[in-house]
């Protein structure tokens, strides 16, 4: 049995990866996280849970030295879903955890003879460049033009990981699109909250812009494939891969489908031209600046809603043998179902 250590192993993605690793019955798993498995999520008897922060070099080294894994899967990362996504505040936190944290884990792994390192990057390395559409982006699309801090931090970390690749220490990076699935902390809840706020009738821009998602078990599968690739042929070493469900669709349609799962169908549609929305976003930012109260609307949020961004996953199919097993329609249903249960328990 090969040993695998998963950082962020109790998080949304990390726990799904742990589960997928166990299902193969080929790996001995250590899950490292700053948090213990949270209530209501699965934890496994066969898994060795270690509590450590990626910012604490000492405890990271200790954990890796104790576990002696063949492969490290590094999923730890932070992001902002609110207005901070478009601002310059929170730079320390993003770069600290996403870049320095990655560097810490990478160096400890190399030191203790780990053979493979799989890094969970993000498609944001390319698409967080809010000045342009990114239709059908692939691994040839230039990295390093991200205008948002998150994309910049992921790109910097990815660069560190991929340039550390050597025949003895193979590294690769996976760039998932927006991840949805049971336990999703951000996407479905955010879209769902539009119902309460009465924002569902508004369509900003054409509504034709496409976006990409990836279902949680599919992105977990991609990580397993990357692990086995690095341990065998190594054809993925030094490479980055976009991982999506391969089913780009109109962002508006996705939202409408999620709302429909919660029994809500917008009773009318109000189209707001992108330029007007941009102006309103600017005004909202001014108000925020004066009052200090965060607003939903901002110029960045308008662009996020109007840009066309989806990826071509041929390389992952070819090199990793990746094939999304759960379709987006089914995945969306499963994710919404779980969120429905989650909020009904809260009440």
């Amino acid at each position: 049995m090969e040993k695998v250590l998963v950082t962020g192993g109790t998080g949304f993605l990390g726990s799904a990866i742990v589960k997928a690793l166990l299902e193969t019955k080929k790996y001995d798993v250590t899950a490292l996280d700053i948090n213990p498995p949270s209530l209501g999520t699965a934890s496994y008897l066969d898994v060795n849970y270690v509590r450590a922060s990626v910012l604490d070099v000492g405890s990271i080294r200790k954990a890796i030295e104790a576990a002696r894994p063949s492969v490290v899967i590094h999923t730890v990362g932070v992001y902002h879903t609110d207005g901070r996504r478009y601002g310059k505040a929170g730079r320390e936190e993003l770069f600290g955890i996403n870049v320095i944290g990655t560097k810490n884990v990478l160096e400890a792994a190399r030191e203790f003879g780990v053979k493979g390192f799989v890094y969970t990057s993000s498609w944001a390395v390319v698409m967080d460049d809010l000045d342009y559409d990114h239709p059908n982006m692939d691994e040839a699309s230039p990295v390093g033009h991200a205008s948002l801090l998150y994309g910049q931090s992921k790109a910097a970390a990815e660069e560190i990981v991929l340039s550390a690749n050597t025949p003895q220490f193979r590294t690769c990076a996976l760039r998932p699109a927006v991840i949805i699935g049971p336990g999703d902390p951000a996407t479905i809840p955010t879209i769902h909250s539009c119902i309460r706020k009465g924002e569902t009738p508004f369509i900003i821009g054409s509504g034709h812009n496409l976006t990409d998602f990836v279902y949680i078990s599919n992105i977990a599968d991609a990580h397993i494939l990357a692990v086995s690739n690095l341990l065998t042929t190594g054809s993925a070493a030094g490479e980055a891969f976009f991982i999506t469900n391969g089913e780009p669709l109109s962002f508006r349609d996705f939202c409408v489908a999620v709302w429909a799962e919660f029994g809500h169908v917008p009773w009318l549609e109000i189209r707001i031209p992108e330029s007007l929305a941009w102006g309103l976003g600017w005004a909202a930012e001014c108000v925020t600046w004066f009052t200090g109260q965060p607003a939903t609307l901002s110029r960045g949020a308008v662009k996020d809603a109007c840009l066309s961004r989806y990826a071509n996953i041929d390389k992952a199919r070819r090199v990793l043998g990746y094939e999304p097993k759960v379709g987006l329609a089914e995945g969306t249903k499963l994710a919404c179902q779980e969120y429905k249960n989650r909020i009904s328990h809260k009440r």
Partner: protein
Amino acid sequence: MPKLSSIFYYGVHPSELRSIIQWKVWHNPVHERDESKECETLKQCFFYLDMTSRSFAAVIKELHPELLVPVCLFYLVLRALDTIEDDMTIPLEKKEPLLREFDTVLEKDGWTFTENGPNEKDRELCVHFDVVIEEFKKIKPAYKAIIKDITKKMGNGMADYVNNAEHNIHSVNTIKDYELYCHYVAGLVGEGCTRLFVEAGLANPALLQKPELMESMGQFLQQVNIMRDIKEDFDDKRRFYPKEIWSKHVDKFEDLFKPENQQAALNCTSEMILISLQRADECLYYLAGIKEQSVFNFCAIPQAMAIATMEECFRNPNVYKTNVKISKGQACQLMVDSTQNLQMVCDTFRKYARKISKKNNPKDPNFLNISIACGKIEQFIESIFPTQKSKGGAKLISAEQEAKEKAEAGEARQDTIYMGLAVFLTLFVITGFMVTIAWFAGARFDIAFGQIRNTLFGSGFAGNDLPTNENLKNALTPEHGEL
């Protein structure tokens, strides 16, 4: 004489009227058939082509001379086969062997078939089938072999289906059955045409290495026809919708036509449309392999018509009442656009995919899958005709370029200044005129100025910005002939 309703329709849809005129006036066939060089039997063949085909005759007659006759004959042979299959007056014992051996008929001089029922609309073609056989003898052996091979496969497939239909009410149970049926009647036509195109050197031989593409070409057209013709077929007691699909929406097939089941029926159409829509990208891919314009038109026009018909039928309850058709203006627009190049056809596909996506209803169980199918079409088009790649790369520009851009920016700034001056001057002149005219007409500017002065400088005390009584009185007393 055009109908009053159509005059009204084109009165409010002038762009469609423009398309009709554009097509009628400006369309030049890539190749024109030269009737003077044709012998009598060939003329007869074209006569039957016009008689039996509404949509295909025009595109076939404009085909490259190398393929004109073979494709025309191929069409007539399959049409005759279809006429025999459709005819419910021919007993199965007679029909089945006839279908299975139809390829050998092509070698029998003077063979005709007179046993079709009197209501069969293409009966005449079978009665005079000897002219087709006569012309078939003259074409190149390679083309003959292809046509015979497809005829044999299709005849056998139809015989299987007819046999099955005779013994089983639901002859089309699963989606697989449905696609198999479409394969026999349409997928094989795609294969035959492709082999003819490649044989003639007018299409990329790689198309034969990707058989799923030519299959999709046929399936796409056939499935749209089946979906559109549901009412007509139902009236003629034919059913092609697979039970696997309709049974999800209604209990009995005939329930689809009941008004109280309208939503279920619409969802059923959506699911049928979804199956065919998923093949649209492969159709575009196929078109990329065509090397010659007339062959391209021959392939592209029906595909463009099909996606437009699909859009027209999508979430349209009339599908279960009449035969829904696209307007003539729309058809002409589609023909104009699909006789140019692949990019124009892609634009057409994207346009209709977006229209479908817009009509999509979140209460439809296939809402997301339809949206995904539309996204897939867009992604495919993006992969062959990329919109400018993320200009991110262009941020690193040369010094020379930078200097040029700077100069351009300077010029632009000067332009802005002059424009601003011009606007200001114009406004000034106009205002001057207005003021003068107003003064001549008796406007009391003195009062207005007085008021302004009073308001602004009347007194330094706060709270005194209301007009004083005196001023008010002045303003309200019409001393002068004001309007």
